[in-house]
């Protein structure tokens, strides 16, 4: 009877242990389910790393945890830390060294993709890397050839060493985490590829726009070149010939420059003779002039230049060229009364000398100044003496 009771107690203890074990396994499965639910919400590596560390530490009742993912291609380091502080930022070189030491300390030394292996990292290695953790469990995981990482867990809150099934749970969580991490990295790669594609599309669009503009510019230059060539060809044909346009241009340019220079010059001349704008002097016919001269009632003035006067002039005429008017007037006409009749003659097709001198005589208060119609020839035709 006592043996039976003892057997029953033992069976009851075994059943209780099995029950506790089952509860623990259910709890573990529950944490695995929670981890999957948590991880499927995120596609970012940092978030996945943090969620994973939080869940696994909760599942195993661990107070310190450290997780790391390293990208060998970009040398990118991403870490998640709970319950401890890092001495500083982990450099790529430090991480590579840590991973190498971890690999050396791993159980099966494998770098196969999607593999995970338990590690026991020596404390001095962790101290050298600046990670102050009392690692009780650890794992090295390899996602693919370029991505790998480690997980380190500290002592449990209860102080009990992790059991083998808890280490299996760590591996199961880690395997699930790796899967999500791989997906996240694939997503990031796709995202990066998409960004790159967008950037390349933008570059392509810009290049096409530039090419189109360049094509338009080239077309414009081609047209301009053809115009210049035809213009040059035409000009080459004309260069050895007299061009009416050139003649006109020379005369036009000479006129413009001449007028402008004359406008500014201190020795300028009026473009049109002033006699054009003055009222004509009082004319006197040759016969009337002859009568006055013969009666001695008029003074005859030859207004032409000295050379022409010397060549031929009416007898008795006083030469008063306009160029020497002031001095000759003072010498020869200064004593004349203002009322004295003065008959002026001498003009050519190019110059109205008589009108000019008559005007200047009137300015000197001579009231009775007349211009001989027909000039020297008219008086000569009336047999007036010429010398």
């Amino acid at each position, binding site marked *: 009877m006592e043996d039976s009771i003892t057997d029953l107690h033992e069976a009851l203890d075994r059943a209780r242990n099995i029950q506790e074990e089952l509860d623990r396994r259910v709890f573990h499965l529950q944490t695995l389910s929670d981890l999957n639910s948590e991880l499927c919400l995120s596609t970012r590596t940092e978030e996945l790393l943090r969620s994973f560390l939080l869940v696994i530490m909760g599942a195993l009742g661990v107070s310190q945890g450290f997780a790391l993912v390293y990208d060998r291609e970009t040398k990118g380091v991403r870490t998640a830390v709970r319950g401890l502080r890092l001495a500083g930022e982990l450099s790529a070189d430090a991480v590579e060294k840590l991973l190498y030491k971890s690999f050396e300390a791993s159980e099966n030394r494998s770098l196969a993709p999607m593999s995970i292996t338990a590690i026991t990292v020596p404390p001095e290695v962790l101290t050298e890397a600046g990670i102050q953790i009392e690692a009780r469990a650890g794992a090295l995981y390899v996602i693919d050839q370029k991505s790998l990482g480690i997980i380190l867990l500290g002592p449990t809150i209860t102080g009990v060493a992790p059991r083998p099934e808890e280490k299996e749970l760590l591996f199961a969580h880690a395997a699930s985490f790796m899967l999500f991490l791989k997906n996240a990295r694939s997503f990031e790669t796709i995202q990066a590829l998409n960004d790159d594609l967008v950037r390349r599309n933008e570059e392509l669009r810009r290049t096409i726009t530039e090419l189109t503009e360049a094509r338009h510019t080239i077309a414009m230059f081609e047209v301009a070149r053809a115009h210049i060539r035809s213009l*040059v060809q035409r000009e080459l044909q004309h260069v050895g010939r007299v061009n009416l346009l050139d003649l006109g241009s020379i005369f036009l340019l000479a006129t413009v420059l001449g007028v402008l220079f004359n406008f500014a010059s201190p020795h300028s001349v009026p473009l049109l003779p002033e006699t054009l704008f003055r009222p004509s002097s009082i004319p006197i016919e040759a016969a009337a002039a002859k009568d006055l001269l013969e009666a001695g009632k008029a003074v005859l003035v030859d207004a032409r230049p000295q050379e022409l006067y010397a060549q031929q002039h009416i007898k008795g005429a006083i030469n008063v060229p306009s160029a020497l008017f002031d001095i000759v007037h003072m010498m020869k006409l200064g004593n004349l009364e203002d009322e004295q009749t003065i008959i002026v003659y001498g003009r*050519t097709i190019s*110059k109205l000398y008589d009108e000019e001198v008559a005007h200047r005589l009137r300015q000197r208060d001579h009231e009775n100044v007349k211009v001989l119609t027909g000039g020297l020839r008219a008086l000569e035709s009336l047999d007036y003496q010429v010398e």
Partner: protein
Amino acid sequence: MRFGEATKRVLTSEYLALAFRLYIGAIFIYASMNKINYAAEFSETIASYQLVPFWAVNLLAVMMPWAELICGILLITGIKSKSATAVLGIMLTIFSAAIFFSLLRNIPIGCGCFSSVEETMSWTTLLRDVVWLAMSVHIYFFDSTLQLDKRFLISLKDI
């Protein structure tokens, strides 16, 4: 026969035309200077020829020296030298005719070619103008070297 060909080659030489071109260009540039500065005196000279209507004398006195200067510069630089020679040729023809008729009419005036203070013109003056006219004719027909506009256009042709 050979002497004749050599003479012909010299007389029709483009380099002789170039020498004439530079000479005539320089003469006209020099001739224009005094006239440009003293338009009133040049106006008196034009009037003394008794060929131009009185209302056009001053206009001509203002414009003609600049035409001489422009043509002289064009001849020296070899730009539009054919047209410039034609203009100078026309002007020299008019000057020669004016001198000729003034000599015939025995008008006692100076030539006024370079300045207003000159000796009375003579048949020598007419001969000088006729020689210049002959040079202009030579330039017109035989000048083909050192023409800047032609060179510039030929360089543009390679575009």
